[in-house]
């Protein structure tokens, strides 16, 4: 049995000291060791996007990142973003547009949408579709999700005027 590795990181603003097996990926660590069940595991090989979390300010595939690689880093999950209010407008737009049914993809979808509205505030509808092509949704058919993200892009542009 390989040794456990010490892991010091910040999760949703809270410093944590833990130890993990090297093979543990970031989302198993978040779900099982930290108890944050908002990040989901779908395919576990980087295709579906349900595991999307923020590491050091950028979205990553949580299933394709080892927990030990987050050592010294800062992780944000849907729980942290929900609590801080950083994506309240996205969450409200998802509700208003019925952009979720079963909800399994929603946390990953919101993480991806957050980076889009923050880094590409003038994204077109086509660019939104391209961006979220890395997140699978098997319920909605995507239109409602694209509608919701476009609503928020518009709202934030108006607010910035």
């Amino acid at each position, binding site marked *: 049995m390989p040794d456990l590795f010490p892991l010091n990181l910040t999760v949703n603003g809270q410093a944590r000291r833990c130890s993990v097996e090297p093979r543990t990926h970031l989302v198993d660590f978040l779900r099982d060791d930290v108890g944050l069940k908002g990040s989901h595991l779908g395919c576990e090989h980087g295709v579906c996007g349900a595991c999307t979390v923020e590491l050091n300010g950028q979205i*990553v595939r949580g299933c394709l*990142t080892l927990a030990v690689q987050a050592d010294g880093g800062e992780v944000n999950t849907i729980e942290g973003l929900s609590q801080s209010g950083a994506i309240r407008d996205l969450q409200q737009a998802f509700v208003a547009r019925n952009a979720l049914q079963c909800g399994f993809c929603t946390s990953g979808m919101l993480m*991806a949408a957050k*980076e889009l509205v923050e880094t590409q505030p003038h994204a077109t509808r086509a660019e939104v579709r*391209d961006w979220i092509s890395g997140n699978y949704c098997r319920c909605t058919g995507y239109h409602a999700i694209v509608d919701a993200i476009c609503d928020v892009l518009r709202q934030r542009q108006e607010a910035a005027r």
Partner: protein
Amino acid sequence: MKAAAFDYVKAGSIEQVIDLLGRHGDDARVLAGGQTLMATLNMRLSEPALVIDITGLAALRGIELRGEVLRIGALATHTQIEQSPLVARHAPLLTEAAPHIAHRAIRNSGTWGGSIAYADPAAEWPACLLALGGTVVVQGPAGERRIAGDDFFTGLYATALRPEEIIVAGEIPVATPDGWSGMSQLARRHGDYAIVGLAASARRQGRALLSVRLAFMGVATTPWRARQTEAVLDGQAPDEATLARAVAALREEIDPLPDLTNTPDTKRHLAGVLLQRLLASART
């Protein structure tokens, strides 16, 4: 699925990586962005005894101009390349290609060096390296050596990299004022691997194109240069008659491998479509 257990070392120097590769051989795997390796670990297609994490090595980072070449460190992520003003100015083909690589969350982690080392014949960076006449810089027990991109890809997921070597950087000759480059690909969905893709470069002299390089993705066991078609185009203006001859030459020369959904004939046809489209955009 979950990865099998392995030991883990976060390397502190390139020498340490080379030493570990020497001692553990094929039982060790190098972890950079992990966007391929982690998937194969999770699916247990790969069960190394040791994973050597190189992401802490500052010497492998960064994008810089060194004389006549743009040197891109092995650990530069796809997103860093996509957003780099230096790349946009000196290797615009890479700026154009980057958004086609998978999806943002993957581009934030996946690396330039990792993509070249993995040598997927359908991937963007290996084809761009060929199209731009780039060089791979590797380091091993005997020190550093440079391998021309044209000599680097030797077979399906196989490269000229020796077992104890790692890629430290890739070098791209900087774009010249008379240079032209472009890329075009066909995929079922944005971010998917291309069914067929084409990265190309040339020099312009008046209306004519010189030193044409055509690197195709997704048609062979390696990224593949259509050298006979390049010769047909060389010194010619890419007008309709020339492009018709070039497309005919390409469909003669190319011998595409099928994938799960596309036959060789489909790919042969699509390769011609891409050539026609891309070279038409090179007209002055």
